[in-house]
């Protein structure tokens, strides 16, 4: 793990990169990284996350400012800006059932080619996918997802980058930290090594490339 300034961390992310972003309706989203992406005027990002939050919050900031040109998410219902941009063709949106989305990301991080899920069988979600029968039940083959970057929001990071999360701020964060080539963490608090007991570390430091404290 390396320490780095917020500006330098975000400069690592080129136009057109794929980024997984933690958070659920903006709760547990690394807002400093969102704001800095907007400030640096990044373009053409593929954003993978649970939802596009609300206008002015979390991934919603990337939508409104035109940073994101594509989103792979499960829900856009509380962000009219995403819906508008999807309908006008300004943004490409792939809607994925929530449990399938997180499992595709988990599969990516765990070295699996994909998962078999009953979710989506008999719905529009099955279009173009392989259906596989196992012991008489039908499943969809949902392929793994990985990304260039994971933008993770943590509650605590020690100096090595061991992470814990708080309450419902955990959501996608520990899962995306497994599934991206470069992991950038925005931590609410930086604490000395040993403050997080080994049993309480959720994301091991070896997965973390950069940590930036909340600004």
């Amino acid at each position: 793990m390396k320490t780095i300034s917020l500006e330098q961390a975000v400069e690592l992310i080129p136009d057109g990169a794929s980024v997984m972003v933690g958070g659920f309706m903006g709760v547990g989203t690394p807002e400093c990284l969102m704001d800095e992406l907007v400030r640096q005027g990044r373009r053409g990002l593929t954003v993978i996350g649970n939802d596009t939050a609300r206008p002015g919050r979390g991934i919603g900031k990337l939508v409104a400012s035109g940073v994101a040109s594509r989103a792979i998410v499960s829900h856009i219902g509380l962000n009219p800006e995403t819906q508008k941009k999807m309908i006008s063709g300004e943004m490409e949106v792939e809607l994925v059932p929530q449990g399938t989305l997180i499992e595709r990301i988990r599969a990516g991080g765990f070295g699996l080619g994909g998962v078999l899920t009953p979710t989506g069988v008999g719905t529009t979600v099955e279009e173009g996918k392989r259906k596989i029968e196992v012991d008489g039940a039908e499943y969809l083959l949902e392929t793994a997802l990985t990304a260039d970057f994971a933008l993770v929001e943590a509650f605590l990071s020690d100096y090595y980058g061991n992470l814990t999360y708080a309450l419902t701020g955990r959501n996608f964060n520990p899962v995306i930290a497994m599934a991206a080539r470069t992991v950038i963490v925005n931590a609410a608090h930086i604490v000395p090594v040993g403050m997080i007991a080994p049993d309480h570390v959720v994301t091991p430091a070896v997965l973390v490339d950069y940590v930036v404290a909340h600004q």
Partner: protein
Amino acid sequence: MDPQTLIAMRIAQELKPGMLVNLGIGIPTLVANYVPAGMRIYFQSENGLIGTGPIPEEGMREALLTDAAGMPVSALPGACTFDSAMSFGLIRGGHLDVTVLGGLQLDERGQLANWTIPGKMVPGMGGAMDLVTGAKRVIVAMQHSAKGASKIVKQLTLPPTSSRTVHLVVTELAVIAFEDGVATLRETAPGVSVQQVLAATDAALTVPGEVPQMHIEGADS
């Protein structure tokens, strides 16, 4: 009594001590208000919480303790939090006893459409498809009709949420169970006749010899 309160009160009667229950947005959320005091139900929020409690007092709201709509909640004693893979493992893996969801349409076998109106409303399915596919028991909370048209129809005109059928629907007029591909009228609302339910329903309903009325405290019969 307004229709939403009636529906929520009736569905609360389906919950038993110790159950893990997920409530959707809208009428389903109200169900938690009518669980008898002292009965321990584990409410799950799919954003990663078991033990979801009421909205906290002003000044006690924590930005990192929210429901699936991102709104502040409290956590009850014994609550626990986890990541989204665990949350949907609970849902899809058959660990969730009951899910209560809203509905746009139900067909007469119990297949549900509740996530999109193509061309009009495209919010994304969120967790709805996983919930309907994975929960042990699926209960739909919805008004019987929309704009004068029955929401319980012969055939869906909207895209289905799952190939799996739901178990029960509670409306302001009736309780209808779906078993073996058949819709059966189980109860009528206080003051509502079997004929009124049949007249308001497009789908074919099986009517047993005796159809009791819902027992709802404070409702006029």
